[in-house]
């Protein structure tokens, strides 16, 4: 068990390296000189030269990468080309927003998705088939941006029950719509996968055993079926994380929430390479760590792995 987990931890290293390398190469390929957008018109050649030197753009690309890598390994992600703000500081100040959005959306979607999946599976098992399942596929067809805009319109403009966008004073109500939209969006795949996991488990012999024992149906489902389905569901929740990440980038953009995703998209537009690099690496790191936690949780719900 420990060996398995430490192996997984160790595997993150080449992965993060690969992510950084690919991102770096992509950014290197970007057309246009980033300095132009920094200085505007009327800058003298000396000014441009000074800035190129400041940003290290006068160096060959492999030197730039190895420098970046060296600094990053020391925990320094560099500074934004545009604002001069240390990238790490930007990440630290914006992470709470993303974290809050993600945690709210994740909780909402997990509760909603898992219970929806269970309900659908249990009913389907009793013979009320497909409509609910079809509805889930339909739900999965709605793009998150559209869901965000619909939430904005229905709850923000039409009913006026929540602020339409922005962080406001940072209070919870400003997260209601984005977290709701993102949560609903990520709930659907969870519901689908929980449903199929539950259906699979409900057909297992030990469920029949539990029924043969005379357990009430509720206990059969919650104690015996769900606990086993959790083994799959935990993986499902884990695999939904990257979905959540992508969703949060788009949600933050639509709702104008100053989180990591917003930072990233803005930086992409501004050609702010250090920030883009920082965001990608940060996301890859968070994602790997989350997957690691999922592995832990997986081991925890599954005695087979826990005891080995």
């Amino acid at each position, binding site marked *: 068990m420990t060996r398995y987990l430490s192996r997984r931890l160790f595997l993150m290293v080449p992965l993060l390296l690969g992510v950084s390398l690919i991102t770096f190469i992509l950014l290197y390929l970007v057309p246009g000189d980033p300095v132009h957008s920094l200085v505007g018109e009327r800058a003298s050649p000396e000014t441009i030269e000074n800035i190129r030197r400041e940003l290290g753009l006068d160096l060959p690309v492999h030197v730039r990468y190895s420098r970046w890598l060296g600094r990053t390994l020391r925990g320094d992600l560099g500074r934004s080309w545009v604002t001069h703000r240390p990238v790490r500081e930007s990440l630290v100040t914006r992470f709470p927003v993303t974290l809050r959005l993600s945690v709210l959306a994740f909780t909402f979607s997990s509760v909603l998705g898992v219970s929806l999946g269970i309900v659908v599976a249990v009913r389907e098992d009793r013979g009320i088939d497909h409509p609910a399942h079809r509805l889930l*596929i339909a739900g999965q067809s709605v793009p998150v941006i*559209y869901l965000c*805009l619909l939430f904005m319109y229905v709850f923000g403009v039409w009913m006026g029950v929540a602020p339409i966008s922005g962080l406001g004073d940072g209070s919870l109500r400003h997260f209601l719509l984005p977290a709701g939209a993102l949560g609903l969006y990520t709930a659907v795949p969870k519901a689908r996968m929980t449903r199929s996991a539950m259906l699979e488990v409900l057909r297992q012999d030990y469920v029949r055993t539990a029924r043969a024992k005379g357990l009430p149906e509720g206990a059969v489902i919650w104690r015996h079926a769900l606990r086993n389905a959790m083994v799959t569901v935990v993986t499902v929740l884990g695999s939904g994380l990257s979905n959540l990440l992508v969703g949060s980038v788009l949600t933050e953009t639509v709702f104008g929430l100053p989180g990591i995703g917003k930072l990233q998209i803005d930086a992409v537009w501004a050609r702010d390479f250090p920030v883009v690099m920082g965001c990608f690496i940060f996301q*890859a790191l968070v994602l790997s760590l989350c997957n690691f936690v999922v592995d832990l949780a997986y081991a925890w719900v599954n005695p087979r792995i826990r005891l080995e």
Partner: protein
Amino acid sequence: MRSVRLLGRHRAAKVGMGIVAGLVAMALFAPVLAPYPPDHMELGRVLAPPGRTNLLGTDYFGRDVLSRIIFGARVSLTVGVVAQLLAASLGVTLGLLAGYLGGWADLAIMRLVELVLCFPDLLLAIGLSVALGPGPYTLFLALGLVGWPGMTRLVRGEVLALREREFLEAARAAGASTGRLLRVHLFPNCLPTVLVALTGGMASCIMAEASLSFLGLGAQPPTPSWGSMLSLGRPYLHHAPHLVIFPGLAIALAVFGFSLLGDGLRDVLDPRWACSRPPATSRPGRGGGPHGQAGRS
């Protein structure tokens, strides 16, 4: 033939096929179907709500929203088809090679696959589109380059299962070259899997195109694209919500159609799912749902 008949009996697949056929017809006959040319402006009739003259209203130039949605099907379908073909050709080739050659080639290809898969797909597509600069080819390339690893995984798995089967042994014994083995014997056997993944991939592609266009990285005006209609309509959410609502519905409907068709095809074509049981786990790789799930190894 049997598959076609089965598909005809699959209710969901029929609905999916209907929607997809409708989309294709919309794209092909857009000039006939659309009540107005998509870029016909009536500057005196801007932001008109849905009504008799303009079924779905007009935008900020007085262009007919319905006509633009109909023409928008062209963008979505073209992007989907081209990007998926690109992803499929790349993915299938690498998958065949990895599965058949094994060893070093397999290792290298699968490491690459894992690396690409650990990027959330849309973020990778954003990175690629920025690196390539906006434009139609960018969309094809970006979405194609994002889509191949899932396909590679699927095909590789299929090949691994097929590799030890007798007919291959026989062909090999008869002196078929590697290329011929791959082309004639392995590829057709992977075709059902690829077809299923392709259809599912279309759904994710349409979704991704919308997201990229929404961010301004997609189709270039005046080409009416559903995603850019969403993004350009957004400032008018207060006064003219129809600019957002209808294009969004179009996206959702298209994705829904392809998802249903993909699910139906999977039930019918893929022997592993052919039994009446629903799949126990999610489909591997990105061929699956919209935006896919980054596969965990």
